[in-house]
Structures are given as C-alpha cells and as structure tokens.
C-alpha cells in the first residue's frame, strides 16, 4: 500500500513553487523582488507560479504602491500552510518507508 503518495501535492512539484511555499512558511510576507533574489528566477516564470498557487488559494496576493512604484506582496494562507505541511510529511514518509525496505525508481 502506497497511499501516502497521494498526500504528495501536485501543486508543489516544481522547484519554484516549493521555494515560494518554503519561504512563505517562515516569513510573514515577501514581495516579488525578494523571491526573484531568493529563487533566482525570471519575472515571467515567477509570475506564472505565483498565479498558480494563488488559484489554489495557497497564497494571498496583496497589491499596493510604495510611492509610485507598484509593490506586490505574497503571504501564505491557512489552507496553504496545511497543504504544505501535509506535503512535507508525505515526503518524509516516502523517505522513511524506502529507507526501511525496497528502493523504488
């Protein structure tokens, strides 16, 4: 039985989304530039991933202005936190089970 694999969330399969969620777990809010620096991604790539996570209601987007410059802030939603924690436990379970038995490829 491998039903723990079902807890692995498809929404977090890309490296960029994993990064966005990890960073938001430990920060109240981060803006677009902070992610660009942290994850080393292009604007377009980052925007498509934040849109996807927003569509899942895992992150909240808040647009404002600092002076005249637009500023987009992202923060994690309770649903997002829960989903990500579930994903983390699934990853851990996967590794634990493999460590004790067969190695799957």
């Amino acid at each position, binding site marked *: 039985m491998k039903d723990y694999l079902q807890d692995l969330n498809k929404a977090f*399969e890309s*490296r960029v989304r994993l*990064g966005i969620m*990890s960073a938001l777990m430990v920060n109240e809010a981060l803006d677009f530039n*902070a992610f660009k620096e*942290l994850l080393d991604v292009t604007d377009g790539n980052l925007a498509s991933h934040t849109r996807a996570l927003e569509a899942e209601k895992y992150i909240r987007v808040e647009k404002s202005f600092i002076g005249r410059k637009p500023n987009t802030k992202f923060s994690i939603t309770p649903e997002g936190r829960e989903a990500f924690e579930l994903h983390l436990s699934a990853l*851990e379970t996967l590794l634990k089970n*493999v460590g004790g038995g067969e190695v*799957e490829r």
Partner: protein
Amino acid sequence: MTTNNALTDLAEIRSIMERSTKFLSLSAASAILAGVYAIAGAVYVSGILEKGDPEPRQFLLVAGVVFLLALCTTTWLSYRKAKKAGQKLMNRAAIRLLVNFAIPLAAGGIFVLFLYIRRFSSLIAASTLLFYGMALLNAGNFTFSDIRTLGLSEIALGLLAAALPGQGLLFWTLGFGALHIIYGGVMYRKYEKQ
C-alpha cells in the same frame, strides 16, 4: 516521485527556509535609547572641551562606554521582544546578522585605532560613521530592510564629515544620536506599535 527527488526537495526546502529567515526580534526602542546615550555622551564630551585642553583618550573612553551601553540595551530589549513572540534570541538568523554586522565594524574599530595611534584624529569621526554605516548596510540584508537605509544615511554623513573636518562631534551627534532616534521612531511606529 523517486526517493532522490524527495531528498532534493527536502534539502531545498530546508535551505530556502534558512536563507530567507530574517532576524525580526531587533527592538526599535533600543535604537532610540542608543541615540539618547550617544547624545548624552556628546554633551559630556562638549563639557570636557569647554574646560579646554582635552585628552583624546577621554573621547575614546566615552565612545566606548556609549557603544557598550547601546549593545547591552539592544541585546536585552531584543531578548524581551523575542521572548514575547515565543522565540529564542539566538538562532541562525541572529548569528548571520551578528557576523555580517561585526566584520565591517571590527575592521573599522581597528582602523580607527591606527588613526588614533598615528595621530590622524581629524578623520576619526568620519571613519567611525563610514564603517558603522557599512556594517549596517551589510547587516540590513538579514533583518528589517530599514537598517540598510540607516546604513546609507550613516555613510553619507561619514563622507560629509570627511569633507568638513573639525566638526567631528557635531557629526557624531547627528549620526549616532539623531539618526538612531529618527530611525528607531520610524521602525517603532512601523513594526511595534499596536
């Protein structure tokens, strides 16, 4: 998903969480108090100056006392802030902040000591402001970004002090006194006022 993928994912998550964590227990009130100590020190030094025939060692002593008081206050108030938020004062973010702050500052301290020994006293005020500004600029990456702006202001003031020698005490009062009180106030309103 293969186990290798799961391992890289977990490693990646851990690394991003660590790298993106900023030290947010820094207390704004301690910046205001540091500014007050600096102004008190400046007033005391100007008192010595008025009596005439000042001994440079006395200035360094006052500066050292002000620095130590500010350091203790910042540590204590940040400890209280961390405790209130249910966090530890010392964590990876705190250590990264301290190391990045201490390196330019220590270099500056040693440099100023050489200036003193070789009697380039006219550049001491400018150098302390410049190195302190660079330490803040560096440390600002690991805490509230306002610290970077404070660092830039100290650097600007340090350059001005280098251009206008003989006004060391005035620039010290502005840089270590006024700027700390202003930034501490701004940060207090921004992050700590409920």
